């Protein structure tokens, strides 16, 4: 078991290495002169040179790479061009809202979508199933900001039940914290939920047609037990896989959702950095997000061993 975990852990290293190299070279293979572009259209030559120095572009490539890797190993993600603050500090400041949003979305999406998918499979081709499928198809088509604005329009503007925007840190009380996260979580999670519900349904349908479900029924077991223990546990692997893959959706969506709801998290940081062309921040964020994604996939990989005994032995 530990061997399996170690193996999966080691497998992430090459991917991270590629990401690191890729991110490094991104700056240097972009057409045109990145320093000039970042400095802006009316920048003087001095300003451009200053930017170039800040980006470390004035030294030979290999030296840059070595330096960069060295810094990376120490957790130094560089310095923002415009604010001169270390990127790591900027990221740490904005971390809580994004983590809170992502976790609450994950929780809401999984808690809603899996049961919905199970019910759809159980009631296949009947009304409940058709409704679920329609929702799933729509969920894929609705862009994050549309869902956000529709929700805001209905629940904040018209009904005035929930706040329009803003983030309330948990330090200021549990209920305001939750209140501020309800709409953003749903908006962020719509596509995610559609994906999970769809895969849950498909996986459950595949499992429900298996012989061992027939055996379970022939033992006269209660429907709930057959569905949730016998079926769902077998259906779990694809579902968990898609939960992991969907994290990428969440990470992408966070940028939009935080912008719409004015949540001061990493997503907003990204947007601000892009608009100001503060590349070190963007670069640092890419690394952080990619690492998060790889970490999540690692956790998913490891969870397979718990779900399917055949993988363990």
């Amino acid at each position: 078991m530990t061997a399996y975990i170690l193996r999966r852990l080691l497998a992430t290293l090459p991917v991270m290495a590629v990401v690191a190299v890729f991110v490094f070279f991104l700056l240097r293979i972009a057409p045109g002169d990145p320093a000039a572009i970042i400095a802006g259209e009316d920048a003087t030559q001095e300003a451009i040179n200053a930017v170039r120095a800040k980006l470390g572009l004035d030294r030979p490539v290999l030296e840059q790479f070595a330096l960069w890797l060295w810094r990376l190993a120490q957790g130094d993600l560089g310095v923002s061009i415009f604010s001169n603050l270390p990127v790591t500090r900027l990221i740490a400041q904005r971390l809580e809202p994004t983590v809170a949003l992502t976790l609450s979305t994950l929780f809401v999406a999984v808690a809603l979508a899996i049961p919905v998918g199970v019910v759809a499979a159980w009631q296949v081709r009947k009304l409940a199933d058709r409704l679920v499928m329609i929702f799933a198809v729509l969920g894929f088509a609705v862009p994050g900001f549309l869902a956000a604005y529709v929700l805001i329009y209905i629940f904040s503007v018209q009904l005035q039940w929930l706040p329009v925007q803003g983030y309330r840190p948990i330090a200021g009380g549990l209920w305001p914290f939750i209140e501020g996260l309800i709409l953003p979580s749903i908006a962020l999670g719509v596509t995610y939920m559609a994906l999970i519900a769809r895969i849950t349904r498909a996986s459950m349908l595949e499992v429900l047609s298996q012989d061992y479900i027939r055996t379970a029924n022939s033992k006269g077991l209660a429907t709930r037990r057959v569905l949730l223990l016998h079926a769902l546990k077998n259906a779990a692997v694809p579902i968990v896989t898609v939960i992991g893959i969907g994290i990428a959706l969440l990470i992408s969506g966070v940028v939009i959702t935080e912008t719409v709801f004015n949540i001061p998290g990493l997503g907003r940081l990204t947007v601000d950095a892009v608009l100001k062309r503060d590349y070190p921040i963007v670069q640092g964020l890419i690394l952080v997000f990619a690492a998060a994604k790889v970490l999540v996939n690692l956790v998913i990989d490891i969870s397979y061993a718990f779900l399917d005994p055949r993988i363990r032995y």
Partner: protein
Amino acid sequence: MVAIADDTDAPRAVPPAATRWVTAIRRNPTIATGAVLLAILVSLAILAPWLTTDPLKQATINRLRPPSERVWFGTDQFGRDIFARTLHGARVSLVVGLTVAAISSVIGLALGIVCGYFRRIDGVVMRVMDGIMAIPSILLAIALITLTRPGLAVVIIAIVIPEVPRVVRVVRSVVLSIRAQPYIDSAIAGGTRGVKLLTRHVLPNTLAPLIVQATYICAAGMLIEAALSFLGAGVPPEIPSWGNIIAQGRSFFQIAPWTILIPGAFLALTVLAVNLMGDGLRDRLDPRLARRM
């Protein structure tokens, strides 16, 4: 010798074209719905200049008018006609979506075939693809855009790069599984050589999954472009794209929700149409694909 009566040899009457269309529609409702919806939207987009007024024309005297008989979709804070802007925005989104899908497919097809044939290149390329896939696509696109001058071409390239790995993966797996089939060995033994093998056996089998992936990439492309434009990192604000329109409607959302909801709904409908076609095509082509292999 007993003659066995068998009615499978009887000639089948060919039904008229109209009936064939109707059967095709009934058998593939998803594709049909998606195609019809898409056709409507594409027509609206193409005919936009003739159907509407100038999307850029400002008329502050008419600002923030809600949808009415004269102004079907209302106006924004500069008095611009949302109907005109929405239809023109359709052009941008569709162009971006289709271009992204086409370019990614071509690049992905080439890379996928190369990977499927050359083991050593495969190792390197797939690692790079894994790396690219580890980075969330919108962030990658954003990073690329940060580094270059704004423009439509940039946006397209920035969206293509994160989408290519998907195609490469699919094509590569098809190529690998085809090459492992016994009939390939016999084809080679029978004298079929490289290029012919490629065109006659490999390419036709990659076509179906490629088309399905292409539709999904088109949908993804449209969504990413809209997101980028919404964030201000996409198409320049002078060109009306759905993302731009929505971004510009943000400050007045509470009093003029139509500036956001209507273009948003159009985007959703277009993506829906493309997704339906992709789903329908996948359902239709996949089992056949499985049977062929």
